[in-house]
């Protein structure tokens, strides 16, 4: 049995109050790796992402990163989603290196969302 690892203040805060958890009325994408799953949805209007939402089955770091992504990219254009950087997110949230794979999963979901919005 193991105890919980230590989490950064930002991860704790984002995990504790995920304001973007849920669904937006618009394109939906899902990505999965191992047992972890991410679902992103976006409400798009006038060329901008008016609302972003996420659902996650995964560790606190993934939940926190998904929340941080939604908060940062709401109100921006779909093409700007390409600016999401897993490396920057890992650094900004103080995510341990062994969790990189989880954040790359989020990156995969974001890429899929950008493509889906582009096609719609």
């Amino acid at each position, binding site marked *: *049995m*193991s*105890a*919980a*690892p230590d*989490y950064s203040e930002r991860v*704790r*805060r984002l*995990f*504790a*109050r*995920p304001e973007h*958890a*849920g669904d937006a009325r618009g394109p939906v994408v*899902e990505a*999965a790796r*191992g*047992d*972890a*799953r*991410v*679902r992103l949805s976006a409400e798009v209007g006038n060329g901008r992402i008016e609302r972003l939402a*996420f*659902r*996650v*089955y*995964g*560790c*606190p770091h993934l*939940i926190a990163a998904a929340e941080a992504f939604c908060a940062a990219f709401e109100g921006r254009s779909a093409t700007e989603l390409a600016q999401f950087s897993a490396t920057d997110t890992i650094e900004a949230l103080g995510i*341990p290196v*062994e969790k990189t*794979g989880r954040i790359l999963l989020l990156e995969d979901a974001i890429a899929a969302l950008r493509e889906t919005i582009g096609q719609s």
Partner: protein
Amino acid sequence: MNAGREARPVYLDYAATAPAAPEVREAMLACLEDPLCFANPSSVHRAGRAAARAEAFAREQLATLIGAAPRDLLWTSGATESDNLAIIGAARFRAHRGRHLVTLRTEHKAVIDAFAALERDGFEVTWLEPGADGLLPLAALEKALREDTQLVSVMHVNNETGVIQDIEAIGSLCRERGVLYHCDAAQSVGKLPLDLGRLPVDLLSLTAHKFYGPPGIGALYIAPREGCGVEPLLHGGGQQRRLRPGTLPTPLIVGCGRAAALAAERRAADFEHVVTLSAALWERIRVLPGVVLNGAAEARYPGILNVSAEGVEGESLLLALEPLCVASGSACNSLSGEPSYVLRALGRPTELAQSAVRFSFGRPTTLADVIEAGERYAGALSRLRAIAPPPVPQALA
């Protein structure tokens, strides 16, 4: 979700370690402050003799708790060392007779890894599988025993699930077949009755910090029987019949002895206490959707309650449960996020095994603590399930 960093921590991880009892701390402090007791018990001067008397008294206290003769105990640093000395030491001691050994997949890592080390040294190990309830099927053990089998190691109470093995039946079978039986009793000493004068156990590991003694001190019982013995793993001074050399830590030993005496006095009341707490918590969480108990419901030490829940990830559950101090069934820090090997051996699917939470109760736990635990567990399940994506249809999984 409730990070709860400001809230009062509720410690429900007594299977990991228990705080030293006030009486234990007092006895240790008295030993540390005594002008003579600090000495090396092997020294022949007056101070050494005082320390030796304190050590002998503690040895007697521990021996009384488990129904052993004091001379049949070796002090060690804890259960991990005791397990290693018992398993590797006995395998080497009996290697001239045969090199086949038997253990159970759900043993503590200290046992698993000691056997794995012996495998690398050319011993042959049969790894038995438990039933879905965590119990060792005796027929499987019987079938595994061979002419050249020298040692069987099966724990008393499982550290993750609390499942209690029938050590009397296991030991009897081993005796009939002339095989040594080692029992890791780290989770049962001081909690369940143990009478080594009667039980067919040849080697038994224990550690003080699980029964309100100090960390860093444990013991190995070696039955005074023909053919039962260990080769030492450590070499140095001649202490403890050269089987486990090293200067004895008198204050820790005194604390262990005091904890053993307290456990002997309070065992029945402690047991009733955890029965009440375990029932109160299980009553609250068994009604939650998708929650299952891991391990046998009946043959289980009630001080440990291990539950899994569908649709929640173990590491997030653990954080959402803060300020509860509980243990998780997932190896949160690992790259793979591998779930508990114990629960996997019980046949739990990965997702359920990974969501496991072990609640373990102790002397200081109150009914209010478990009521709060039940409420927080229900709240955490509900919050995490609310943010999870819909389950993947079985056909696509």
